[in-house]
């Protein structure tokens, strides 16, 4: 078995960088969708090793960054009710809603807890039958099947004190929205490998055709990422838009059929508001009526959190669309830092602002 370490081999990295430099003859802007990849680029300084003609645009692939503030406000409101507990992934707890984040709400007495897996949330619900346990579910198609299966398990085991606040989003509609913005500068995409591991590449053919862009499915090790860039550049230089899988050791053309089937069974596709990007048609998943008893929006429909239109200084919307680099934001590393974030991209371990803060702040 070839290990992950093989995909960090410095000599191959050098060869690939040479090959990219030889092939690049013009200026190209390539967007990596996934925030995890943004971090790898910056961590290893790969972006600086690429030819100066290649401009990397960092995309919206940071789930907690794009989760609408209304959902966070709702989660806080639920967590303030007696005998409830809101659980979610760690990053989500620190992202500000329209006025507060979940951890600050906890400091004021709301019941909030961090978990690693939605199954942990279900376990808590089983152990504490007197409490309403609500899993605040955020993430892309990578994470959504896990939530769907957890809901199916809750139904099978009749765990009636468990529900899900579902804020899941879908990536391809956001790519379409980005390309539909006349101000966009995207020549090609590195598609997020793990989203495609679930969904396959089918959804991308239409986008590639309609907007005449290359979309290269890309992995996460340094060599995976540079290989994705290389294939994207080859396609741009050779004028061959289309879809290509540069992460075939993990991602299959058809994706994961079992996971897709569970997604279908539990969720339906709906329009969704993405933080910083606005309403994205068909941009989210919502729990189907058949599983309505596990939908926290229904269970707590009597609550109506007041979302204050806060005077939001954060420029995250521009950053997430690749229209602005994090260090071009006037608040970057001044009023905005991971300790005192003004916006979600500075909080999350996948946020572009957090990556620049960590790896580029002193340059």
């Amino acid at each position: 078995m070839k290990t992950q370490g093989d995909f960090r081999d410095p000599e191959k990295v050098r060869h690939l960088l040479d090959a990219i430099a030889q092939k690049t003859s013009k200026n190209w802007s390539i967007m990596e969708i996934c925030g995890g990849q943004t971090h790898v680029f910056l961590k290893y300084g790969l972006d600086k090793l690429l030819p100066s003609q290649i401009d990397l645009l960092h995309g919206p692939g940071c789930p907690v960054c794009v989760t609408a503030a209304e959902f966070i406000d709702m989660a806080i409101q639920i967590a303030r009710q007696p005998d409830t507990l809101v659980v979610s992934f760690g990053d989500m707890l620190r992202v500000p809603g329209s006025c507060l984040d979940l951890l600050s709400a906890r400091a004021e007495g709301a019941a909030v807890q961090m978990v690693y897996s939605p199954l942990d949330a279900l376990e808590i619900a089983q152990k504490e039958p007197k409490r309403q346990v609500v899993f605040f579910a955020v993430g892309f198609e990578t994470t959504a099947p896990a939530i769907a299966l957890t809901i199916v398990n809750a139904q099978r085991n009749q765990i009636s004190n468990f529900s899900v606040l579902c804020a899941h989003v879908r990536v391809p509609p956001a790519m379409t929205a980005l390309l539909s913005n006349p101000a966009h500068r995207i020549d090609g995409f590195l598609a997020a490998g793990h989203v495609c591991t679930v969904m396959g590449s089918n959804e991308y053919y239409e986008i590639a055709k309609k907007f005449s862009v290359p979309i290269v499915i890309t992995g996460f090790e340094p060599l995976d990422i540079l290989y994705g860039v290389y294939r994207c550049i080859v396609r741009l230089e050779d004028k061959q838009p289309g879809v290509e899988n540069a992460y075939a050791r993990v991602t299959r053309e058809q994706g994961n059929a079992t996971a897709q089937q569970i997604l279908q069974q539990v969720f339906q596709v709906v329009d969704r508001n993405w933080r910083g990007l606005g309403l994205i048609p068909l941009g989210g998943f919502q729990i189907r009526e058949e599983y309505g008893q596990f939908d926290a929006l229904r269970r707590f429909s009597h609550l109506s959190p007041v979302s204050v239109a806060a005077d939001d200084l954060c420029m995250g919307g521009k950053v997430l669309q690749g229209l602005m680099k994090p260090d071009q934001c006037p608040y970057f590393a001044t009023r905005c830092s991971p300790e005192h974030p003004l916006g979600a991209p500075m909080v999350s371990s996948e946020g572009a602002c957090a990556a620049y803060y960590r790896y580029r702040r002193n340059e």
Partner: protein
Amino acid sequence: MCLAVPGKIIELTHLDPENRLGIVDFGGIRKSINLTFLPEAQVGDYVTVHVGFGLSIMDSEEARLVLEHLEQIGQQNQQKLDENARRFPRSGKS
């Protein structure tokens, strides 16, 4: 959050197709992982795991092919450099 980590299945502990579980070894750390999305996964397979769920079985043949392709790219680079060195012996580079 979309990060998925690779590990090796060392035991299948629960074979119910609607809730398949196994023990996965992540470089020494062993965890119980839900393998329902991987009905065909067997002991010894390397899988990518995300928030406690296996999402895909790693294909070592595909890994080998990419690494081989990268090897070729390296050789081509070298050839080009050698050729240029022959053609422009003094500058050594085009």
